[in-house]
């Protein structure tokens, strides 16, 4: 089994877990297993065409898969897969607001009702 580390912004889509265990031989298989178990997380990680979103990086242990064999990178027993999305919270901000649940927002960038 390998462990997939789930970043905070995505934990709500995987039953609030910080890690999900999967049985897989490659990164692609591991991610398929994740998405099969937790379909709600799919669209935050992948485009409609099935490509990993550009602001999400995947690591096997501490190596970026872009510099290994990408999604064909082999995963062994006990390996960790990390999903690392870009986050921007810092000085004062509320970060970005979700709108995609109901309808993708084309004109709204930040929802003012988010707790600052």
């Amino acid at each position: 089994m390998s462990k997939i580390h789930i970043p905070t912004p995505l934990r709500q889509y995987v039953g609030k877990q910080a890690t999900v265990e999967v049985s897989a031989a490659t990164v692609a298989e591991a991610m398929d297993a994740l998405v099969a178990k937790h379909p709600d997380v799919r669209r935050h990680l992948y485009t409609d065409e099935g490509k990993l979103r550009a602001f999400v990086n995947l690591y096997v242990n501490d190596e970026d898969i872009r510099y290994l064999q990408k999604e064909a990178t082999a995963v062994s027993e006990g390996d960790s897969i990390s999903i690392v999305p870009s986050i921007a919270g810092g000085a004062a901000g509320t970060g970005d607001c979700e709108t995609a649940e109901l309808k993708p927002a084309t004109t709204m960038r930040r929802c003012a009702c988010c707790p600052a």
Partner: protein
Amino acid sequence: MASTITEIPVTLSKDEILRYSRHLIMPEVGMEGQQKLKAARVLCIGAGGLGSPLALYLAAAGVGTLGIVDFDVVDYTNLQRQIIHSTADVGRKKLDSAADKLKGINPFLNLRTFDTRLSSDNALQLFRDFDIVADGTDNFPTRYLVNDACVLTGKPNVYGSIFRFEGQASVFATKDGPCYRCLYPEPPPPGLVPSCAEGGVLGILPGLVGVMQATEAIKLILGIGEPLVGRLLLIDALGMKFRELKLRKNPDCPVCGTHPTITKLIDYNEFCGIRGEEKPVANGVPEIQVEELKRRLDAKDDVFVLDVREPHEYQICNIGGHLIPLNDLPKRVSELDSSREIVVHCKMGGRSAKAVAFLQQAGFKKVHNLAGGINAWAERVDPTVPKY
């Protein structure tokens, strides 16, 4: 590793020698190191969550010149984490508040304040006068702006970012190291990064990450230790776990690669997919004002109040509405009776506007958005309802 700072001979007065004695007695710092700190010029972007501890510790450590860029005013809700500001500073410019505390800690500090929003028009000019930039900003367009400006001016970018109780830290844009775009070539499109309706941030978190940024800046200045160049530190404050991932410089990076295609600053709002002003837009959904809702409820009209906030917000305050969090609305729409007048509210009117748009598409004809949300209700109808 070699220091990134060109050494300008500076001297330390007797007072300074006493002040920094705990640095001076360490061979890793010593007189030479303290002089390097005094000669160094660090620019902090933001005097907020990350900027507060960052600036405070750099000032205390004896960094000679600190620049701060911030156009904002201290807000009451900032006090939970922006520890450079006090209650008495609410309403003041963050720069003024920060300046008082920083000079209070270290009168030897040469403080330069920039009351402006960092932009493609001013970034290159600003960065040229400093040796290191510390990025403590809170939005994607500025992060890409800071990164690109750092690469173009050859200044290291001491990076930190946070979300709820997780953080990231690294050092980007050194000559041989990766830049932010090597890690994240593209920002998330607006509307796709997960919810900040459940956002918020653990007050201590920017403290943890901000001091890491200060640490990295000091290490770069002194030329000691192993900086976070080529390393992404992931901080999980809840588990108190620290993990590290390897970052590589991308030879095809458009800004720091071998054949850069970005050689000047761009329109970062456009790059991040933002058009025009960032403010909540009702998108033409029908609205009702809080006074009108109050009138109808008092008259015992048949109005169904739907609250689309999260359960923990409902616990803070509520006006007795039926709670269906926005995310759950599609699944639970059968709980609503489309023959009734429905007024939808959230905290400030943004999420509820989306809910109204959704319900209209689902065939509901008698829905209105409560303009300004429960905050407006607290402000204008019932002051006993707390604001948050």
